[in-house]
């Protein structure tokens, strides 16, 4: 018989750096889950993504066991990586601090596709480009869907 689900906990934690402090401690501890077990598993599974913020969805069961799914990093983090800037613009609407190509936007969109509410890669790319603009990162050149215009 399938285990009875108690609920879900959604967190964003840096790869390889889960520890029993807040928010992990109170979020899991209040459900009676073994926090240290989660930290060991999460850190073990994210050794190749050290320091990258990763969304994680923990499913916990009535018997106090749990499992979890690690999602792709937020698009904003992938954009900072791709543009090689450490922070968004000081004045995102005026001052541009970096740029990415449409190919890079496509790569990020493809990475994020499983976690986005998008049906096509074009709509995912538009969403990623919107995030880039909000951070003061320009997307260089014409969008693929504009090239024939």
């Amino acid at each position, binding site marked *: 018989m399938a285990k009875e689900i108690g609920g879900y906990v959604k967190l*964003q934690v840096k790869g390889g750096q889960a520890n029993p402090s807040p928010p992990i*401690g109170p979020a899991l501890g209040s459900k009676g889950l073994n926090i240290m077990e989660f930290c060991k598993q999460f850190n073990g*599974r994210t050794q190749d993504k050290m320091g990258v913020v990763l969304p994680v969805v923990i499913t916990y069961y009535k018997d106090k066991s749990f499992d979890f799914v690690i999602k792709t990093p937020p698009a904003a983090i992938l954009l900072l990586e791709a543009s090689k800037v450490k922070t968004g613009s000081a*004045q995102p609407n005026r001052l541009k601090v970096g740029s990415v190509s449409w190919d890079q936007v496509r790569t990020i969109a493809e990475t994020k596709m499983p976690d986005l509410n998008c049906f096509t890669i074009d709509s995912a790319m538009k969403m990623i480009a919107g995030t880039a603009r909000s951070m003061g990162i320009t997307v260089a050149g014409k969008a693929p869907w504009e090239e024939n215009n």
Partner: protein
Amino acid sequence: MNYIEVALNVEPDYSEILVAELGELGFESFVETDEGLLAYIQEGDFDETELQNIVAKYLELTAIAATWKSLERKNWNEEWEKSYEPIEVGNQVRVRAVFHKPDPAFTYDLLIQPKMSFGTGHHETTWLVMNEQLSLPHQGLAIMDVGCGTGILAILGAKLGAVSLLGFDIDEWAVENTVENFEMNELSAETEVFQGTISKVPEGKMFGGILANINRNILLCEIPTYIQHLEPGGWLVTSGFYEVDQPDIEQCAIENGLKKLRSNTRNQWATVVFEKAKIE
């Protein structure tokens, strides 16, 4: 170490941008809320001005409000610790809390009150290392426990005959907890526990056995240093990594002069035991 919780009221579109920005400032983890975002950072790393600068630069684009508070240091794992089940390793070792009755059928009775530290035997890696310890020589040896957590591995080491234990961990909870657990088990071995890493172990301090249940990256970085502290003929037990990472660990240890004795796995987690060559 206390933590700061920053509550940000912000539109969902800007939540993930703030996660990226705050992640670069040293914020460690985040929770999305109906109002926006909660962000967490160690008190010593929190810089109010840097936070205000981030908020200010997005204020022209969206409404953001930030408030913060310090969170008290607390044992969040208490609920689980109150009711954990004893763990058995083979038919010799039983790990239990003070509220469990001892079972005389087991040779080695370990008392562990975890208090938010890792190591009760419930996790595969702790179990795997303890299982290996049972067939490794401990009698009369000095043992080093790297990333000691609750101190469970060192405690078993002492019960198997080790005469000297050195344990250390980067986490202050773990250090306090190891000291408490050492006392609770009334060990006859000499014990030393400190907060820190292998870099604080004095050069020339040697051990007959080293227990290192940590993770892949730390092991790959530190195995050469462990070897410097390992006596000829001494053993090193590594764990805390998945089976897929085992070849990297073995390559690192062997390239640095160790010989693989054996390995084992449990639910995709692995342990590998190495030996340093004896001087002919």
